[in-house]
């Protein structure tokens, strides 16, 4: 069993702002279009 992406810890999710921002992803829109 091999993890491609590990679970995100809940406290890391708190970094959300209206424009979602995190260190790895930069700024993305408040509604996500994948």
């Amino acid at each position: 069993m091999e993890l491609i992406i590990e679970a995100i810890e809940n406290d890391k999710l708190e970094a959300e702002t209206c424009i979602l921002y995190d260190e790895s992803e930069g700024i993305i829109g408040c509604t996500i279009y994948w």
Partner: protein
Amino acid sequence: MFKKSYYNEIITHNNNGEIILFNSRTGALTIMNKEAQEIYNNIENIDESLFKEDKQKEYLTKMQENGFIVNINTDELKLMEAVENIARYNDKLLTLTIAPTTACNMACPYCYEGNNIKHKPSMDEEVKNNLIKFFINKVKNAKAFKVCWYGGEPLLEKQTIAELSSEFVKVCAQLGVHYSASMVTNGVLLDYETARYLKEECKVNSVQITLDGPKEINDQRRLLKNGGSSFDIITKNIDDIKEILNVTIRINVDNSNLDYIGELVDYIINNKKWGRKVKFYMYPVVNKCNECNHDDKLLCDDNELSKTIKEIMGKVCNNGSIEFMANSYIKPRNLSCSATKYNNYLVDPEGDLYKCWSQIGNKDMVVGNIREGEKLNPEHVKWITLNLPKECEECKKLPLCKGGCGLLRINNGNKPVCDVGLVNYKNTLELKYKEYVR
């Protein structure tokens, strides 16, 4: 005793009999081999004390740590509600979106702000001083303080950004609070020296800049107020600053540029070769607020947009460049957006506070001001008590969207706003897997 998580989704199977499994509540994505599948498929009847091999114990631990299995008594919906409430009401993170001005050096036809702003465009000394006092009062209990510079065009007010940043950096250092900043800018004034100053003195580490197509398309939509082209200036600035700041290019999409997005993406990746520090994402122009009055005929059909995003993502992935897409990382969120969070405000140049960026300048939507602090007025209460729509409770995608755009839900009686982008999320995860095994 364990059970499978309700939020597991099989993304695909491979030729080795392995399954690619995603958990939308934790964001974990795994390749599950046959041996692990045996445990997973029988999880409700497994007695782990009978495991003889370390490997079996390891699989079980991994499944549990990553949320693919949960304790038999866990109500995951309730768990998410609890996490959402903690995130919403705790004061460990303070986020301010600050518009030092609502003036802009561009005049883009689809921008809502020109219709909203009827007040003084820039911050005066009194507002700046009161903003510092407001921040000091709010940040006392925080562990982290995040600022996003917004506008108008924030770089028209570099001096204000410098003054306020200096205070934010100083006070956060004194209190042991982690400080970071980002900026939404049109990029016209973001030259090398400005970027260096923002990074070193203002602790800005990430900027969002909009490009709406290849040069001729962009310049029809992203108009400088003096009528000049913005494309060459902006792309030159990105050339110069990409090693200093993380750049995300936002592509605002409607029917008039939808067919040209592929050309722009090709330009970004293959022509400019900006590398992984410059990412991009597409976002539809939408009429969210009363002041938004973009021509309805130009608004994208959701399916058309999803189709285009899927095509572009496929192409980008085939080039081995999926990491260039800012939205290629599918992850859960605690709240639909942070406008529903208590300690999160947008500050306009007059010092009034709002919850959502689309409300800037609309004084009916004000939830307080920096002199007296926030108020629990009806507008504020609407936002911080906006709960999940009942209709969403059985949706496996719920952790990824949490009901969708808060502003639209406040205006529609809290009906779900299903994000069009979620149509593609399994496809994107499959691309992630393909890139991983490549």
